[in-house]
């Protein structure tokens, strides 16, 4: 840190723009948030320019999309749509999370459970879900149940498989340590295997949550025209492209914020050592 600033020291007097760049760089390296914000700002700027060119008549500017987003919040249509999208999502993720983590841990601990269940989830994870989701309609209609099932079908396999792999790869030296101090099997699972596996289990939950968002939107686009999926379809059909993009942006925003919340919950609760440098 010291050497480059000494070398670069006299330079700003001759080339002021470089000095500005260097000091901005230093600011950014000290505050990573600055990097992320400036990448967002650049992205929105590019979007605005692309919308003004315009690259397609169906492509709104960033500012028009923002206005549409605010107006959809004001007239309440966005919140009504989220009401019907989030319900199956929350139910589906809750079920996938609990069932997936428990099943994954059991499969990691028992060869028997592994043989019974692992092939099913490996196939499910590899299957093209978008093609399978319309099939749900034949069995479960087009209601809440069908949407919840779509979420579970996409979210469960990755949660199960991550949990299973994490437990199977738990640090054998820590397990031996626990045994050497006469830890019971239950203590071994609760105090060593699960905490050791928790980063990978949580990575599975994050992937499962992201897949759950895809599942619910796919279901709304493909089988039951309700919620955010319907909002997107409707605004596209009447050529309200700014509103359509606003709906898309809002779902990206919601899923990103949910994932970030899950991540901070994890570090806080299970892996306190990750909070420090």
């Amino acid at each position, binding site marked *: 840190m010291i050497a480059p600033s000494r070398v670069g020291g006299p330079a700003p007097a001759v080339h002021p723009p470089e000095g500005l760049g260097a000091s901005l760089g230093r600011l950014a390296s000290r505050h990573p948030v600055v990097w992320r914000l400036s990448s967002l700002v650049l992205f929105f700027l590019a979007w605005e320019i692309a919308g003004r060119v315009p690259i397609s008549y169906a492509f709104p500017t960033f500012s028009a999309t923002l206005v549409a987003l605010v107006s959809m919040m004001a007239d309440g249509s966005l919140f009504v749509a989220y009401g019907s999208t989030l319900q199956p999502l929350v139910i589906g993720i809750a079920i996938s999370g609990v069932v997936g983590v428990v099943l994954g841990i059991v499969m990691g601990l028992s060869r028997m459970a592994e043989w019974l269940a692992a092939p099913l989830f490996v196939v499910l994870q590899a299957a093209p879900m978008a093609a399978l989701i319309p099939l749900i309609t034949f069995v479960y209609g087009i209601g809440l149940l069908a949407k919840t099932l779509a979420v579970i079908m996409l979210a469960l396999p990755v949660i199960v498989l991550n949990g299973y792999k994490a437990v199977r790869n738990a640090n054998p*030296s*820590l397990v*031996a*340590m*626990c*045994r*050497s*101090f*006469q*830890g*019971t099997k239950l*203590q071994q699972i609760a*105090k*060593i295997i699960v*905490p*050791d596996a*928790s980063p990978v289990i949580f990575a599975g939950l994050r992937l499962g949550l992201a897949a759950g968002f895809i599942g619910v939107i796919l279901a709304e686009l493909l089988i039951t025209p309700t919620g955010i999926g319907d909002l997107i379809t409707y605004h596209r059909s009447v050529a309200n492209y700014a509103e359509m993009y606003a709906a898309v942006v809002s779902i990206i925003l919601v899923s990103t914020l949910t994932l970030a919340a899950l991540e901070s919950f994890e570090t806080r609760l*299970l*892996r*306190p*050592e990750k909070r*420090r440098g």
Partner: protein
Amino acid sequence: MAHLAVAEAAIPASETVVAVRGICKRYSEVEALRLIDLDFPRGKLTTLLGPSGCGKTTLLKIIAGLIAASSGEVRVNGKPVTGPGPERAFVFQDFALMPWATVMRNVAFGLELQGMGKAERQSIARNYIAEVGLTGFEDKYPHELSGGMRQRVGLARAFAVNAEVLLLDEPFSAVDEQNRRKFQEDLLRLVDKERKTFIFVTHSIEEAVYVSDRIVLLSRRPGRVSQIIEPRIDRTASPDAIRRDQGYLDTVEEIWQGLKHYVD
């Protein structure tokens, strides 16, 4: 010297804590140990010394009850070993610290598993954290410590459960030379203070001679007992004097002569 003499009198020289009888160990293809017979006397530090891969870790883990022997048996205080027990504590070569737990929780972990209350186990742990020189680091996580400090945590954890027999698997192998000497001196101080039976694994001849009451030389794989040496060294002398002591140097030389033909 007087102090040592009293200790000798208090502990009958012949009393065996750990008895190893006819231990053999095969890993599917590899024969790791062949017919090991050994007695470990109470209150002594016995070292298992031998080339890499000769089965030192395997023998120590069999004594710990962490792995089963293919044949033969281990008795601790006359009782056959069938698994880990409260009278034995293990110090792992790779430390085996929980990365998500503080130094305090790691040191108290053996007591936590026994179901001891938090206040009680923390006060015991605090005592041993001080004993290994880590006071002030109670709330640090393992990744914030150096390799040497991590091994001290592993040592404190083993001391905290107050086992009779401490099993140490190359505890200083991940530590640099300066710290290693310091640790060897600390270990001797703890051996003297805690009056426990130590079984210590190393592949360093100097380390073995410096810390041990008895040295068991193991042959190259399959491991067998090739020689037992009792260094006669006056340990009341200063550490530097010991390292220049003629008895010390002679013993190092004797072991080196015994091991040399394995290297060729």
